[in-house]
């Protein structure tokens, strides 16, 4: 690890001033930043430790009914907050399906949004990577790329965003609260992450020094509590990133879908909100035929970026399955293996 200056500012304005200087990086839980620094993928000259900034580790209900989750709330604490899990079950389920208990105890809300891609060429400094080093090319194109993007990718970069947490958040219209040199602003999570285009190194809308202070869930997000699920498919049952995942949330009344939310993970450089699928679901009968049409709509623009055509069909099936599970109803207690396609679906064999 390269030498760096370590500072631990006491206030938010001091943190922003310190991090606005070039070559700075915020440190929260450190579970992604230290990994990247050890590998020489990032080498900040100054590490600005925000882990003890006051007031960022709180969850509060605002007057308008929205929920404000401080950027330093730990992933484990949020998922294990019973009131939170009851109101936003798909979010808790996504959090618990991510990483391991040790990592979730350290990882924070803000850090999870800003974790970098797990593209293996990005992690290998001997490879060409436009995201790590703009203009050098992309070794994933034509390389080992069965886990790369099928939506929104460009010729410059085909990486995916690895977060689980962000998938139900984007489905539920979460808003990122950002504080910077110009004051506070709000950006929807859907607009927060950027697609690669010609500039894959610009992964989100943050400017130098910008600090995520909170993530908000609007009042409406809790109206899906009875029929919301997160389904993650991965190459081993637990402690692995998603190959494909989906968050599905429905409001169903007399067999008709009154409101629908759908987002996909593991398919693009950002958590992917499937609005065209939501349009198919809205007002339709809640049944498998509707879900299949919604899945087709969600993947209509998908195309392989390499050896990953299988992901398109996999994603379609995951969408149908996530919607089917959501329709069946949110379970009382989040299943131990939200990852497993065999658990928690009525009639599915657990030992298959």
């Amino acid at each position, binding site marked *: 690890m390269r030498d760096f200056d370590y500072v*631990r500012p006491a206030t938010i304005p001091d943190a922003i001033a310190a991090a606005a200087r070039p070559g700075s990086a915020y440190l929260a839980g450190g579970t992604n930043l230290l990994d990247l620094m050890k590998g020489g993928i990032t080498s900040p000259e100054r590490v600005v430790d925000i882990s003890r900034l006051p007031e960022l580790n709180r969850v509060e209900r605002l007057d308008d009914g929205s929920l404000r989750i401080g950027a330093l709330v730990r992933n484990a604490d949020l998922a294990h907050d019973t009131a939170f899990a009851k109101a936003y079950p798909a979010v808790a389920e996504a959090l618990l399906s991510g990483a391991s208990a040790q990592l979730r105890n350290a990882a924070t809300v803000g850090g999870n949004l800003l974790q970098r891609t797990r593209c293996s060429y990005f992690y290998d400094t001997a490879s060409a990577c436009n995201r790590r080093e703009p203009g050098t090319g992309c070794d994933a194109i034509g390389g080992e790329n069965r886990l790369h993007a099928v939506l929104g990718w460009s010729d410059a970069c085909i990486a995916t965003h690895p977060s689980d947490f962000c998938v139900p958040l984007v489905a539920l219209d979460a808003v990122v609260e950002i504080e910077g040199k110009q004051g506070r602003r709000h950006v929807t999570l859907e607009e927060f992450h950027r697609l690669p285009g010609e500039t894959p190194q610009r992964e989100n809308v943050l400017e130098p020094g910008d600090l995520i202070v909170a993530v908000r869930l609007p009042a409406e997000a809790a109206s899906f509590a009875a029929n919301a699920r997160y389904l993650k498919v991965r190459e081993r049952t637990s402690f692995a990133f998603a190959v494909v995942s989906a968050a599905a949330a429905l409001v169903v009344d007399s067999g008709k879908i009154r409101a629908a939310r759908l987002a996909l993970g593991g398919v693009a450089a950002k958590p992917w909100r499937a609005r065209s699928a939501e349009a198919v679901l809205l007002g339709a009968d809640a049944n498998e035929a509707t879900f299949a049409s919604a899945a087709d709509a969600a993947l209509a623009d998908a195309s392989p970026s390499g050896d990953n055509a299988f992901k398109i069909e996999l994603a379609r099936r995951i969408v149908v399955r996530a919607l089917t599970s959501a329709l069946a109803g949110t379970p009382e207690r989040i299943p131990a293996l939200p990852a497993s396609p065999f658990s928690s679906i009525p009639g599915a064999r657990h030992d298959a």
Partner: protein
Amino acid sequence: MTSLPITLTINGHRHELEVDPRVTLLDLLRERLDLTGTKKGCDRGQCGACTVLVDGNRINSCLALAVSHDGANVLTIEGVARGEELHPVQAAFIAHDGFQCGFCTPGQIMSTLGLIAEGQAGDDPERIREGLSGNICRCAAYGGIVEAVLEAQEQLAKADRRTAA
């Protein structure tokens, strides 16, 4: 950069130290304080061998900067037994053949202590497996570990009832 002063309470003992900001909690424990029970496996958060409890929470000490944990209370495998008397989790691991090599066992035990403290697993083997999945072991001791966790929880609950009575 020059070293920074920090204070850590490790297994009940207070340490005042000067550390290079690059030093992880794991390296500090092993290289400076000679607490080599905590193991370095992958050094990247993937194996769990470096698990310690910080302020009661299990974390990967390889992805934690020591400076960032100034003032923390750390429990390592060396602080788990009471003198010669093994902790119920340690005893249960032995009774159920829950370990084979010395490399992952300390992390497995620390992770089990964290899991039990979190109170999320109960008597559900699936939850225990998921809860300990951040600790990777190659020698298939997992079956024994699940049994050990179930027994240790029972022992600890009994001990709790005794102190409460």
